[in-house]
């Protein structure tokens, strides 16, 4: 959709029929009077080597009204220093939702190294509904994207934009809250944030992980807060580091008095959605048997919600759109919803059977800083008050046997919403045994050097969830490939003869896989020796690769390793050797352990059988940077055993 640019001074917003009609307005698109900023000449690859771009200037000015509405003006300039930088910065995209804000592009231009200044023509600013990505389940036509496509950019061009974002439907009436980062993955030459707010709103603020020069100015019944900084180095990304929002210098501002206030507010917003009707009551009566105890009832309702309400987001509607859940009756009728709908639905069911249940807002991926009540949430779950306090249930994660999946443990913020208001709480640490993969093998090497074996894979926690999701959401032939690939990781020559998956049809049963395999020409005959590994590989061979590489590759780290989960893998194998061979040597035993990691390996012999035991645990979901060296040391220690084999000698 290309909307006409109208050369009026102020934005014009038409409210009608419960929806907002947006007009994007350009103010004075002429370059007359605009000069090439001298500062751009200072910025180049000499001063900023090896980067794709530099944020020359980033300013956000917010004017807040007493009712909580606000107008935010952002002015940004980015100088492009590489070919990839053209790709990265050649377009700038913003989003708005017609339920709460509207966005306008005030100006957009390019400064070329020749001194030429190019205004972005109207035709290069597009407004269109949010796209649906393959596999994603967000179909929200009232969220719009605004994209500026910059013409004529080359290396050393600078792009610039000024946008106004008008929040006419604040999340909290008569309040304001906001956060921003003062670091990014690109060098930042200057950043300014200014908030102009009525004094009576009593703004509080804090800066985390750094200092930012600050000024305050009084202006009659208003206050102007100003934070600014210069010459900030880029964050150098490391594999498996926490999200940038969790490590960068962050400014939080809020007029909300407390987290309790936030909690009470969300209770008021969500409470009406917990109402049930006769249809739901009937459904509960069919599902819940009188002889069930409370735990069984909770489990039955949880499992049903997980398995029968699919995840999808459609048009945002109603007040507090994006926060307010759908009515439980609607979610039951539709049999779909997003996290807040599924959570509210489960709360409704639990309340109906007399369980003390609450809706909770959280963020499984990023920290919610406790220091000030600012909205940093992106997910909703359920809390149940038990004898020992609250415990949490997440009905959104399909295929989860656990009430709370592993990545929501280990210190994730949980704000329970209640009538009296609740403080911020954090989820408990989780022991690695809760996310385990137990591999139990039995194999036999015959005189023709063929290894045949069975392997049982027992899973729990995140391992159960991962396998279950793969098996349930992919076609049958993929299941075979998943199982085959699993054993092929250690032995590319392995052939899976048969396999069977147990526990897939019900969340009441843990998932296990039993497979039979064979590997031809398995051991190496080396003169009098036969050398071999256990079927699933030797101990000490810890291979940890993530999308951005091995998090344990560096000698030192600046940022924590954010594994998100704890994990334990145990491997027990009983391997029968051919009768014409005897055991000459095993790989060395080792037991390496610290607060974060443990690796163990032990070989024993029992007549003509070898009994192998090895374990690997990641004990903490996050490894602080200062503790990283001890983890690295442990892994290096284990590494020396990697090359050792089982040595058999001919009798």
């Amino acid at each position, binding site marked *: 959709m290309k909307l006409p640019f109208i050369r009026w001074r102020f934005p014009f917003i038409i409210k009608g029929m419960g929806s907002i009609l947006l007009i994007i307005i350009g103010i004075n698109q002429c370059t007359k009077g605009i000069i090439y900023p001298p500062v751009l000449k200072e910025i180049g690859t000499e001063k900023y080597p090896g980067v794709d771009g530099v944020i020359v200037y980033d300013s956000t000015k917010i004017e807040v009204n007493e009712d909580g509405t606000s107008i935010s003006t952002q002015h940004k300039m980015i100088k492009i220093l590489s070919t990839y930088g053209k790709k990265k910065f050649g377009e700038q995209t913003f989003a708005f939702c017609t339920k709460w804000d509207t966005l306008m592009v005030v100006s957009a231009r390019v400064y070329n190294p020749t001194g030429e200044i190019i205004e972005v023509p109207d035709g290069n600013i597009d407004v269109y509904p949010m796209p*649906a990505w393959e596999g994603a389940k967000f179909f929200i036509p009232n969220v719009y994207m605004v994209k500026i496509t910059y013409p004529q950019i080359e290396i050393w061009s600078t792009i610039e934009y000024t946008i106004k974002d008008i929040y006419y439907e604040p999340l909290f009436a008569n309040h304001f809250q906001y956060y921003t980062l003062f670091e990014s993955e690109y060098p930042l030459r200057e950043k300014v944030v200014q908030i102009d707010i009525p004094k009576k709103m009593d703004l509080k603020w804090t800066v985390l992980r750094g200092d930012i020069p600050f000024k305050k100015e009084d202006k009659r019944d208003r206050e102007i807060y100003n934070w600014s900084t210069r010459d900030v180095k880029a964050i150098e990304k490391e594999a498996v580091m926490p999200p940038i929002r969790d490590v960068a210098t962050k400014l939080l501002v809020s007029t909300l008095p407390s987290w309790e206030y936030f909690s009470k507010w969300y209770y008021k917003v969500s409470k009406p959605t917990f109402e049930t009707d006769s249809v739901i009551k009937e459904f509960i009566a069919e599902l819940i048997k009188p002889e069930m105890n409370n735990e069984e009832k909770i489990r039955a309702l949880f499992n049903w919600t997980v398995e029968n309400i699919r995840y999808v987001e459609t048009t945002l509607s109603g007040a507090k759109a994006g926060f307010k859940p759908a009515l439980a009756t609607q979610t039951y009728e539709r049999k779909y919803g997003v996290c807040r709908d599924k959570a509210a639905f489960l709360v409704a069911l639990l309340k109906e059977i007399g369980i003390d249940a609450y809706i909770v807002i959280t963020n499984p991926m990023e920290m919610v800083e406790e220091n000030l009540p600012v909205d940093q949430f992106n997910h909703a779950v359920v809390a149940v008050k038990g004898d020992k306090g609250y415990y949490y249930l997440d009905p959104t994660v399909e295929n989860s046997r656990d009430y709370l999946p592993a990545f929501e443990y280990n210190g994730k913020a949980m704000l329970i919403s209640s009538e009296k208001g609740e403080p911020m709480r954090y989820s408990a640490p989780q022991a690695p045994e809760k996310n385990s993969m137990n591999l139990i093998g039995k194999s036999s090497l015959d005189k023709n050097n063929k290894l045949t074996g069975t392997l049982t894979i027992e899973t729990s926690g995140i391992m159960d969830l991962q396998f279950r999701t793969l098996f349930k959401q992919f*076609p049958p032939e993929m299941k075979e490939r998943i199982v085959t690939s699993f054993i092929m990781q250690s032995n590319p*020559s392995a*052939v899976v003869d048969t396999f069977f998956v147990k526990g897939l049809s019900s969340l009441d049963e843990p998932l296990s896989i039993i497979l039979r395999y064979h590997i031809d020409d398995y051991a190496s005959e080396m003169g009098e*020796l036969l*050398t071999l590994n256990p079927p699933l590989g030797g101990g000490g061979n810890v291979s940890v690769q993530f999308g951005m*590489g091995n998090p344990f590759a560096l000698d030192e780290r600046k940022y924590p390793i954010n594994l998100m989960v704890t994990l334990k893998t145990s491997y027990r194998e009983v391997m029968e050797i051919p009768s014409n061979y005897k055991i000459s040597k095993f790989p060395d035993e080792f037991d390496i352990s610290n607060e974060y990691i443990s690796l163990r390996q032990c070989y024993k012999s029992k007549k003509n059988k070898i009994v192998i035991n090895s374990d690997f645990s990641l004990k903490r979901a996050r490894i602080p940077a200062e503790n990283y060296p001890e983890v690295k040391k442990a892994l290096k220690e284990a590494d*020396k055993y990697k*090359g050792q084999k089982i040595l058999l000698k001919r009798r």
Partner: protein
Amino acid sequence: MLIGLLLIASSGATILSDSITLSISHSGLGTLDRKLEVLIESQQGREEFGDIEIRYDKEQSEFKIIEAYTETEDGNIYKPEKKAISDVSTPESHLAPMYSKNLLKVVSFPQVVEGSKLYYHYRIISKEPSPLPLLGSHIFGGKFPIKKEIFILKLPDTVDISFNIKPDESKKKEDFIIHRWERKDIERIKDSPYKPPKYEIAEELVFSSNPSWEELGKRIYSILKDGIQSCKRGEELEEIYSFVCDSIRTIPVSFQLIGLKPQPANEIKKNRYGCPRDKNILLISLLRGAGFDAFPVLVQKKWGKSWVSMPLGGFLSNVEEQLPYLSRFGGIITGVQMDDGIRFLDPSCEHCGSSYTPYEGKRAWIIKKDTSYFYQILPFKKNRIEIKNELSLSEEGSLEGKINCILTGYFSRNFQNWIESKNEAEKEKYLKSVISRVSMSAKLDTTIMEISKDEVRIVLEFRAPRYTSRQDKYLIFELFRNPVGFFPLSVVISEKERIYPYYFRFSNAILKEESTILYPGSLQLSHLPETMNLSNEGYKLTITTTREKGKIKYLREVSYQKRRISETSRFIPDMKKFLNEKTNRFLFERK
């Protein structure tokens, strides 16, 4: 004009009936009518069909939902509510809003559980006739099993149309002729890595009112030529190519989604951005301006979903024998007539260099003003990962040395596509990550990464103090395998049996690892891996080891000689043998 339909298929659901009717009026306006009935059988089916997304161009066509509902097992009917029907943007409209206004009409069905049936009847009506004659294709089958699939073509009786498959029925109704094809109990297309394109696995119906490829070529040229303009930028081919490649930002959207009509070349040159179609039109314009004979070339679609498009058409291997149609052409590149043949350039293929195109070894359709013809693009002979390891092993099992890796062609391009988003510091960290695959205790002494258009060169000098360790007098040394670049090896053999032929994204490729391993005089080399030479049609797997005093030379080479390897070949067992752990295992004994 484009009407798109996304077929989502997998087990977990059965398509009970899928009926498509394509009608063309006397004025050339098209209507696509589809009735779909699906039985949901599992969570997978629910995920696939719970929200049906259909692509269409809002400016050029009108979308009508005739009927949509879920019928549960107990016979109740549930219709989607208003807010569950939405128009959202397609991914290409987000990536390239200046080019595409396509939308997805999404219907989120209620009550989608196992045992439910979904019924969806929609109609897409074009607002304008297509600039091209009627040509198209329809593939019977998809990821789901289909009980009944019907394709109907309703045309004015004045249209002369040809098919590659005779209709099951053709009848006259007033001044229209209705052709009908019906297929029952179609098995689903299974998921398999590196499988051939869908049109080679399933039955494809092709129809065309165009008398010949020549005629169609003329029509296409007449559309494309509007973008070719007089413009100049240098005289040398390489210089012109580099300019278009590097200075004109690529907006990644295929002409299949936005049509053939290009933007004027001077506009692209001024704006410094363009889709592949427009970048090639600009390249042609500049080359002609420098006196070269340059012309557009249509090439096969890259990997991705295929969709029924109206009225575009497709492309089979013996293409001259097929009816002239377009749907399988997904890209446009540039051909330049040289003294020794035609040179093909693709300025939208980032990191390809001027000698490599992903369409190497494939059939292409050359479109010139007065003629068009098919041409076999020569296979690119340098899709390679070549590694030279110079290593030194100590008595105690520490390893040090140098890894010298060169990636070219397909592998260079893939690597560069991946690494371009990383700044210098991140690239350095990546190299440390690479060496950790050799050994967790390895330390890098020096690193070199040189990236040019045609190749990537990485040199790593390292020390791994604990690479392996002795067991009594024995030292078992397992040579690490290629730590850089991705070469398809074990991923191609993760199936027990192969249903479809292999179909690689290159016409040939080589992974070659040569290692020289020095060892001390205090160690005696007792065992080397066996020599191996496995080959069959399309592949060759080689291991050779030679020894001299204090030195081992080890060569491991995988060569894929064709794009396609038969499913009946011994490829899986041969590759399993080749990848056996012991093929890179050496035994030393302390003297």
